[in-house]
């Protein structure tokens, strides 16, 4: 019962999805203000999701029906698992199980894989272009992201569970205060920008060139599930960064302020950069970002 409550209500689906949709509204509103517009009201994203639930679901005739309809749900369920593990780890750090950092890292790839599977099974040329770009992007950002995680693990003396990492930071100061930690934080911030599919790394859903890219055939309920998955990602990834790099104490106000600072950084990067081509993004992630990640691993190994 307790497990079900934490999976479905708090800190799982209901709480995290609401927080993510609200963060999505902050994104839209700030973007609008940056462009001298007024922007939507605060309930806009909730209304969008509800409306999509009521709309008709169209399944492409030539596509694969089961894979098309089930893959968004797979990504969605794995994201709920991520937010529950994260939330439990922050709620009570001593209770988190060994190796949950690895579990979270794996589960965070599944939404992207689900988008690829769904797009490929819809049998649409735009969707397959989007899927291939998403695939290349995963190959690009996964390496520096895992290296940034490795920095955290090295600095916490080999602790692989989130609770131990949080406890160590509370005891010995946050990882972001050191050279290697700060470098790894910047690397991870750029990687979550790509994981969230936001500009400058939104080439898999580039509206202006390949319509809606990987999501082009989705409508109705599956589209609502995909939007909810994105909202959960927008909530989970900054929280993951905070718990890995930036915990002084577990006060709710300080956590919220940190979350908003990271969200602000993401939104400002989104609004001040044009979309990269996929080859530029690959060069970016495998070149400078991977170099920074390796540098921070070396720095962490020599104890800086």
């Amino acid at each position, binding site marked *: 019962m307790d497990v079900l409550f934490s999976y479905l209500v708090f800190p799982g689906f209901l709480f995290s999805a609401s927080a993510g949709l609200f963060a999505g509204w902050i994104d839209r509103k700030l973007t609008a203000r940056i462009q001298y517009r007024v922007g939507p009201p605060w309930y*806009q994203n909730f209304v969008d999701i509800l409306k999509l639930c*009521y*709309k*008709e679901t169209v399944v492409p005739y030539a596509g694969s029906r089961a894979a098309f309809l089930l893959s968004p749900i797979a990504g969605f369920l794995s994201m709920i698992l991520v937010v529950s593990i994260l939330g439990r780890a922050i709620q009570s750090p001593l209770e988190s199980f060994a190796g949950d950092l690895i579990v979270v890292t794996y589960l965070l790839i599944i939404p992207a894989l689900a988008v690829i599977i769904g797009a490929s099974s819809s049998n649409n040329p735009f969707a397959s272009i989007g899927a291939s770009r998403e695939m290349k992007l995963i190959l690009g950002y996964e390496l520096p992201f895992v290296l940034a995680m490795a920095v955290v693990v090295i600095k916490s003396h080999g602790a692989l569970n989130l609770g131990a990492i949080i406890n160590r930071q509370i005891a010995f100061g946050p990882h972001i205060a050191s050279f290697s930690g700060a470098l790894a934080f910047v690397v991870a911030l750029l990687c979550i920008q790509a994981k969230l599919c936001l500009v400058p790394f939104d080439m898999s859903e580039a509206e202006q060139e390949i319509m809606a890219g990987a999501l082009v*055939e989705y*409508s109705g309920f599956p589209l609502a599930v995909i939007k909810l998955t994105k909202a959960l990602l927008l909530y989970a990834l900054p929280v993951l960064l905070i718990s890995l790099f930036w915990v002084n104490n577990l006060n709710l106000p300080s956590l919220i302020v940190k979350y908003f600072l990271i969200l602000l950084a993401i939104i400002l990067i989104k609004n001040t950069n044009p979309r990269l081509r996929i080859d530029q993004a690959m060069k970016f992630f495998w070149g400078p970002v991977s170099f920074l990640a390796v540098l921070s691993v070396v720095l962490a190994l020599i104890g800086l």
Partner: protein
Amino acid sequence: MSIKINILTKSLWAYHAATSPCNNCDIEILDVFTPRHDVERFGIVLAGSVRHADVLVVTGVPNFKTKERLKKLYAQAARPCFVVAVGGCACGRIMFRDSYNSPCAVDEVIPVDVYIPGCPPKPEAIIAGIVKLIDKIKGKK
């Protein structure tokens, strides 16, 4: 009035279907999304794919090729989907009525809910048309 209709009118996603227009109406439609008129205040955004769309915004007078495309687009949209004809051409093909490459008007291909005349209509007129569409969806006269 049911909650279903209420939330639908608060988040109308528009798909811009240009069936051989002269581009003036398209520019005016894009003006509606710019800072001066900003219809994202009311939840209206441009959708990239017709599967996501609630409103099909049609400009131009269909010719033999775009007539078929328009029919296909309307069939591909997820229901409920409403159609707004923007500009004199889409409303009644004005001076192209007797043209050799104009087989029919927009409302002879797909059912049109709201007509917004003008050559091109001002952004204010387009917003007024959207308000009429919302009233129509809600069942007001």
